């Protein structure tokens, strides 16, 4: 039994942290003012240094660091608060497609994910505004029609995975996000660093990766892995918000004392720490379950998402509270955590989605004691 990252993984974290903190990364406000859908300079750096293919095999242009290491990279993405759709593309999409066994699609798309020319995401059922329809045209080409809600990181994404239909009629599909894009004004988006977009598909050509029971099984495992990576991003964000609050509370003086010496603030930060530690334990257990049975990962991801959502929300809110007025200004990074805590709580999958998923599993597994 060993529930922690090992030394090699921690060394990778340090290296990744250095890249993220390098001069190529823009501050949150710079990204917003540049009106870009993501930090293209940093994205390019991450591609050139091999991080976008961290979870992919060398055949697909990746560096094969493994799923557990991806967790730690997602945590750092959350901690640094950078404007790149790393978790959706390099974690959720990349590992989902890599495990589909669809060789042609893998050969076509994964090298593009690794070199940054394609950006992937995953559309959960709740991301669809109306149920999408899959059809086949005369030439044998599978096509999809449907309309999505606003998708987190949609403005930057160029390709998505989704499950369409249910039961025997379900299909795991890969759909290019090129046509019918509707992106709102960046300044009007909730999470300024992960701007969304909505899509309308009208007989858009797609690739069917799997159908029927195989599609369902693959899909469930796919969103369990993606959900876990998102939980790690939340864990990183929560730690950054607490760190920001702590540092401010030690430098800001009132009534002749650092405000961090007042018990009201100390207790608030202790509660933030407690929430983070609970989330960390659950996230680590999830990472250790990545190779486990399907039900074990499903339970672990749901639990990690529930506690990481709670931790990030609490820390983001209390960070503003501890900053006082300065925390609610446009210039303060506190707003970025506050916004991102909320957008990550909704996507991938709302907290209600993960809680219901957990409860269905526990109820199904329950054996009444006599």
């Amino acid at each position: 039994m060993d529930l922690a990252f090992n030394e090699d993984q921690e060394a990778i974290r340090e290296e990744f942290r250095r890249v993220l903190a390098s001069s190529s990364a823009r501050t949150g406000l710079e990204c917003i003012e540049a009106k870009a859908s993501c930090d293209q300079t940093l994205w390019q750096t991450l591609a050139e240094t091999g991080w976008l293919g961290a979870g992919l095999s060398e055949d697909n242009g990746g560096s094969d660091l493994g799923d557990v290491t991806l967790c730690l990279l997602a945590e750092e993405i959350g901690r640094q608060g950078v404007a790149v759709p790393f978790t959706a593309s390099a974690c959720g999409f990349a590992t989902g497609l890599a495990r589909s066994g669809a060789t042609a699609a893998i050969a076509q798309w994964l090298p593009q994910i690794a070199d940054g020319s394609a950006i992937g995401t995953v559309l959960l059922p709740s991301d669809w505004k109306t149920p999408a329809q899959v059809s086949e045209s005369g030439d044998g080409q599978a096509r999809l029609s449907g309309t999505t809600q606003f998708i987190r990181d949609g403005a930057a994404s160029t390709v998505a995975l989704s499950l369409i239909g249910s039961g025997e009629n379900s299909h795991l599909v890969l759909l290019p996000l090129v046509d019918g894009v509707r992106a709102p004004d960046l300044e009007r988006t909730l999470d300024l660093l992960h701007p969304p977009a909505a899509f309308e598909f009208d007989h858009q050509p797609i690739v069917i990766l799997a159908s029927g029971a195989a599609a369902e099984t693959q899909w469930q495992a796919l969103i369990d892995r993606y959900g876990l990576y998102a939980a790690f991003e939340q864990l990183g964000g929560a730690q950054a918000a607490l760190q920001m609050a702590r540092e401010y509370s030690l430098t800001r003086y009132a009534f002749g004392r650092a405000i961090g010496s007042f018990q009201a603030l100390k207790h608030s930060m202790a509660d933030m720490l407690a929430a983070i530690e609970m989330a960390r334990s659950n996230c680590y257990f999830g990472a250790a379950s990545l190779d486990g049975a399907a039900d074990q990962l499903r339970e672990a991801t749901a639990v990690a998402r529930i506690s990481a959502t709670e931790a990030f929300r609490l820390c983001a809110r209390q960070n503003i509270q501890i900053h006082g007025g300065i925390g609610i200004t446009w210039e303060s990074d506190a707003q970025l955590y506050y916004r991102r805590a909320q957008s990550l709580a909704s996507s991938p999958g709302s907290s209600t989605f993960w809680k219901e998923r957990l409860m269905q599993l526990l109820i199904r597994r329950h054996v009444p004691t006599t």
Partner: protein
Amino acid sequence: MDLSDTTQQAEFRSRARAFILEHAPWNAESVIRKLRFAGKPFDKDADWIALCAAWQRSKQAHGWACLVWPQEYGGQGLSPVENVIFQEEEGIFSELNGPFMISQGFIAPTLMSFASDAQRRMFLPEIARGDVIWCQMFSEPAAGSDLAGVRTRAEKVEGGWKLYGQKVWTSGAHYAQWGMALVRTDPGVVKHKGLSMMFMCMDDPNLKVRPIAELSGHSHFNEVFLDGVFVPDEQVLGAVNDGWRVALTTLMNERMSIGASTPLGFEEIFELALRKDDSGQAPIESEALRLKLADWYAKDCGIRYGTQRMLTAIARGGQPGPEGAVAKLVGASTTQEIAACGLELLGNRALVQSDEDDDIYRFQWMFYFGALHRLEGGTDEILRNTLAERVLGLPPDVRLDKGPFKDVPTAPQQR
């Protein structure tokens, strides 16, 4: 990141399982399960202690007692990892460790660090067997969270000390044979400096134990009155006036006390939520309840996996982080919430205590226990201070007790 047992751990686990299967008091299983939050589950303490002691002796006889202690004192010389594996397998029967927890988890490590060789050989094996129980006399009416403020005074006499004062919240003082007390040996110096740790026989005629009636109607804690109790010099642990360091050893002995975590009550509320009423409906059909259950289950997991993170840190040669304090802080108020929800689900029938109805019994005790658990062994507030100061490095509170102890204010000052 690896959840599996090593070959050795798996072998240990299967031996533990076989022992428990064969020797645990299975005929008492349902009563223990019903009463796990009650603290005092039998009509008479003696019956409960007898059951606990029998299990402890059986473990000792077969080499399963005090796993993390050195072998020379009646332990098995194993690591906290094996201790947790054993408690996981022990399951509901680990509730039977209750009466020995203070002796084995807190007193014994203190004796190992500060008692003489002869004392260690005399006291530790009988504590390991469960034959002798010790209590810990730390808190006083005016010194709980502010433990270093104890006022029980020790007066130097020929060959030893005489103690005068009052202790409170002493678990098990009414059945303990020995007690360890933190007392003031010098009120003229600052408060942390004038303390000493001593131990004494609880049947001293100058020592009176009075049970405290708790809100549950039962008594688990006691007041202890010391009126000239004589303690020989050789029963001072550590140096005279160095008692605070000894007390910290007792309180900080995490390695010895890491075990399977205190149950939150999730199992109980989940079972209740699934139970169908006469019309075939179960509370779990309510989405609002399911969402709460999911939150509690996530906390239950976070606490259990936190224990595994502590063990990982120890196995790697490091020190555990704040997981223990976090578990207690989060766990206690979660239990309080679960109890309230359980009683609400039971409805008006839970307005009256019932020994016959297992559900009512369980959730009422959990309700009482929740309030107590947020205070014992470090209140929520003290734990938050500890996390803020020790982990986050935030400044200590402004203090007004830094001068000689006798000058520290104890009541509103006349102006």
